[in-house]
C-alpha cells in the first residue's frame, strides 16, 4: 500500500487521504438476473452510505437483495447471469462500476474486504490456512513465502486463535466453526482495508460463539477505524454493534434509522412485523407473531409497495404507487436525522 507520509507527527486517521465524503456511497443501484424463468430483479434502487468507523447493518429476509448488493459492491457478482442496469457505487468518490476489471481487483481485498457466511465452504479445503492468509500479502504486497507466513501467524494471533504458530499449517477442516470464522475475519483484515463487508458472519455459528465473533469484529473495527457493512437477518446481533440500520425488502430499502431508534419506534410495517416476531420473555405462553405470507418472487414483484400483500395496513394506494423513502419526522415536524421510511403510512406506523 502506498501511504503518503504527512509532515505532522500525528498519524493521519485512516481513510482520509484527500476525500472528505463518505467512504462508500451506493446510489440507485439496480441488479437483475436473467434466468430462464424471466428477469429476477434482485436489487431495485438501493441507496446507502458508510463512513469510516461507522457500522451499517443491512437487515432483511433471504432474497431481499442484501447479499446481492454486497456482491455488487465487491464486484464478485456472476455476470452473466447478473447485470447492473443502473446505479453507481462510489468508493472514496470514485465510481467503481466505471473502473476497469484490474482496477477493481486491486481494490478487492486491499481496500474493501468481505467476510462470508459459511467459513468451511468459503475457505479452500486443500490449502493450509497459513497459505490462504499469506496469499493476501504475497499477491498484494509481493512479500516472500516466509514473510507472508510470519504475517499470517501475526494475523491469527490478532483474531485470538490459540497456538497460532503451531496451527498455521493446518487446514480449514481441522478448525472449529468459530475458529474458522476468525480465520475468515483475519483474512479480510489482512491488509487493513477501509471497508469490510460481513455477509451474515455469525449465521453458521452457535450462539455463544456468535457473540465472541461479533465482539471481535467490533473491537477490530474500532481499532482500525474501518467502515463495516454488516449483513444479517438477526435483529439481536445488530443491536449491539451497528450505528445505523437499513431494512431491505424485495430489493429496496424500506426503512433507515439509527440503531436504537429503529427498535424503539419502527416507521415501517415490515420492520414492525420483524420486531414483533422476536420471541420475548415477558410474552411467554402467547402465540409468537409472524408476518403473514411469503417474500415475493423476484421475477414478479407486486405492483406498488412490494410489501402490500403481506401488510396489515395496506390501502388502495399501496397497490398502485411505489412509496419513495420519505424522511421521517416527529409528530410536530421536528427532524429525526438519518430516519426514513418507504411507506405511504409511515406517520400512522410510527406515531399511530
Amino acid at each position, binding site marked *: 500500500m502506498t501511504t503518503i507520509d504527512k509532515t505532522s507527527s500525528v498519524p493521519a486517521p485512516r481513510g482520509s487521504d484527500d476525500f472528505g465524503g463518505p467512504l462508500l456511497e451506493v446510489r440507485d443501484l439496480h441488479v437483475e438476473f436473467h434466468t430462464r424463468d424471466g428477469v429476477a430483479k434482485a436489487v431495485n434502487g438501493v441507496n446507502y452510505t458508510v463512513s469510516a468507523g461507522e457500522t451499517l447493518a443491512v437487515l432483511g429476509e433471504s432474497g431481499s437483495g442484501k447479499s446481492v448488493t454486497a456482491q455488487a459492491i465487491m464486484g464478485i457478482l456472476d455476470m452473466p447471469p447478473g447485470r447492473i442496469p443502473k446505479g453507481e457505487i462510489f468508493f472514496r468518490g470514485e465510481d467503481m462500476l466505471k473502473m476497469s476489471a484490474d482496477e477493481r481487483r486491486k481494490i478487492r*481485498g*486491499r481496500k474493501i474486504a468481505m467476510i462470508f457466511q459459511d467459513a468451511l*465452504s468459503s475457505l479452500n479445503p*486443500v*490449502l493450509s490456512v497459513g497459505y490462504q492468509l499469506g496469499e493476501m500479502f504475497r*499477491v498484494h504486497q509481493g512479500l516472500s513465502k516466509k514473510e507472508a507466513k510470519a504475517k499470517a501467524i501475526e494475523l491469527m494471533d490478532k483474531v485470538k486463535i490459540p497456538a497460532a504458530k503451531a496451527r498455521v499449517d493446518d487446514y480449514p477442516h481441522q478448525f472449529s466453526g468459530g475458529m474458522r470464522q476468525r480465520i475468515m475475519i483475519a483474512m479480510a483484515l489482512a491488509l487493513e482495508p477501509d471497508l469490510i463487508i460481513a455477509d451474515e458472519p455469525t449465521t453458521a455459528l452457535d450462539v455463544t460463539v456468535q457473540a465472541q465473533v461479533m465482539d471481535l469484529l467490533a473491537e477490530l473495527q474500532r481499532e482500525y477505524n474501518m467502515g463495516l457493512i454488516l449483513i444479517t437477518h438477526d435483529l439481536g446481533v445488530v443491536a449491539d454493534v451497528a450505528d445505523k440500520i437499513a431494512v431491505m425488502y424485495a430489493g429496496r430499502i424500506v426503512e433507515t434509522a439509527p440503531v436504537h431508534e429503529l427498535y424503539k419506534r419502527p416507521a415501517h410495517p415490515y420492520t414492525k412485523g420483524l420486531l414483533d416476531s422476536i420471541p420475548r420473555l415477558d410474552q411467554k405462553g402467547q402465540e409468537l407473531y409472524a408476518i403473514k405470507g411469503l417474500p415475493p418472487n423476484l421475477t414478479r414483484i407486486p405492483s406498488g409497495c412490494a410489501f402490500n400483500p403481506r401488510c396489515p395496513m395496506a390501502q388502495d394506494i399501496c397497490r398502485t404507487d411505489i412509496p419513495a423513502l420519505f424522511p421521517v419526522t416527529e409528530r410536530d415536524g421536528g427532524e429525526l436525522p438519518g430516519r426514513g421510511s418507504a411507506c405511504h403510512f409511515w406517520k400512522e406506523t410510527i406515531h399511530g
Partner: protein
Amino acid sequence: MGRYVIRRLLQMIPVFIGATFLIFVMVYALGDPVAALFGDKAPDPATAARIREDLGLDKPLWQQYLHYMGNIFRGDFGTAFNGQKVTELMASAFPVTMKLTFVAIVIEIIVGIALGVVSGLKRGRPLDTSLLVLTLIVISVPTFVSGYLLQLLFGLKLGWVRPTVSSDAPLNELILPGIVLALVSLAYVTRLTRTSIGENARADYVRTAVAKGLPRRRVITKHLLRNSLIPVVTFIGADIGALMGGAIVTERIFNIHGVGYQLYNGILRGNTPTVVGFVTILVLVFLVANLLVDLLYAVLDPRIRYA
C-alpha cells in the same frame, strides 16, 4: 501415512494371488499347450506324455500353480517354448511399452487437462460445445480405426512420420502411436476435467479467492485447478495400468514389439509361461499405480490424509 501404505501393500497380496490364479486357470483352459507346441502335426502320444511329465503338466492344476508361483518369487518366470527365457522377453518388451505408455500419459495429461479447463471455464459457449462433440466422436471411434487412419494420413500420405516403429522404439517415433493410444482416455480426461472445473468454479472458496483480489490466473491455477484435479488424477492413475495392457491394438498397428505384441503371440501359441508371466507383471503395475494414485489423492486433498 506409513501404516496406511503398509495396510495397502498387505491388501495387495490377496488381490495378486487371486488375479494370477484366475489367469493361470484361464490360460490352462485355452487348450493343450503340448499340442500347440507341435503346431499342425499330431504329436506322438509317448513323446507328448514325456514332455508333459518334463514340464510338470501332468500334475493337478493347483500344484502347477504353486510350483509356478514359487518359481516367480525366485525370479524365474519360466521359459517360452521357443527356448527364450520369459524374463528376457520381458526385458525387451516392457521398456518399449513403458515408453509408449509414458508418451500417451503425457499427451493425455497436458492436452486433456488443458482442453478440459478451457471447456469448463467456457461452459455453454460454442468452444465448449464443439469440444464436447469432438470428444464424443473420439470416444466412439475404435482405436483400430483411428490408429490405421492416422497411420495412413501422417505416415503414408503426408510422410511426416515413419508408419511403423523401428525395433529400438525411439521416443520421437512413438509420438503418433502415443497419440493413438491416448485418444480415448484423452477425451475422457477432457470431459472429466470440464465437469469438475465447471462445478468447482461456482464453489464458495473460489468466490472468496476472487474477493481477495487475486488475479484470475491465480484463482484458476491455485484455487480452482487443484480441487478440480482430484477426480482426474484418480482416472489417470487407473489408466496407466489400462494403457500398458491395452496397447495390444496400437502395438500391432505400428508394429511395436512391446507387451501387447508378446501377449498376443503368447495367447496365440497357448504359451502359458509368457502369458501368465506378463499378466502377473501387469497386475503388479496396476496395483502399484492404484496405490500411488491413492497416495497422491491424499497429497491433493488434505481432508483424507492419514485415513
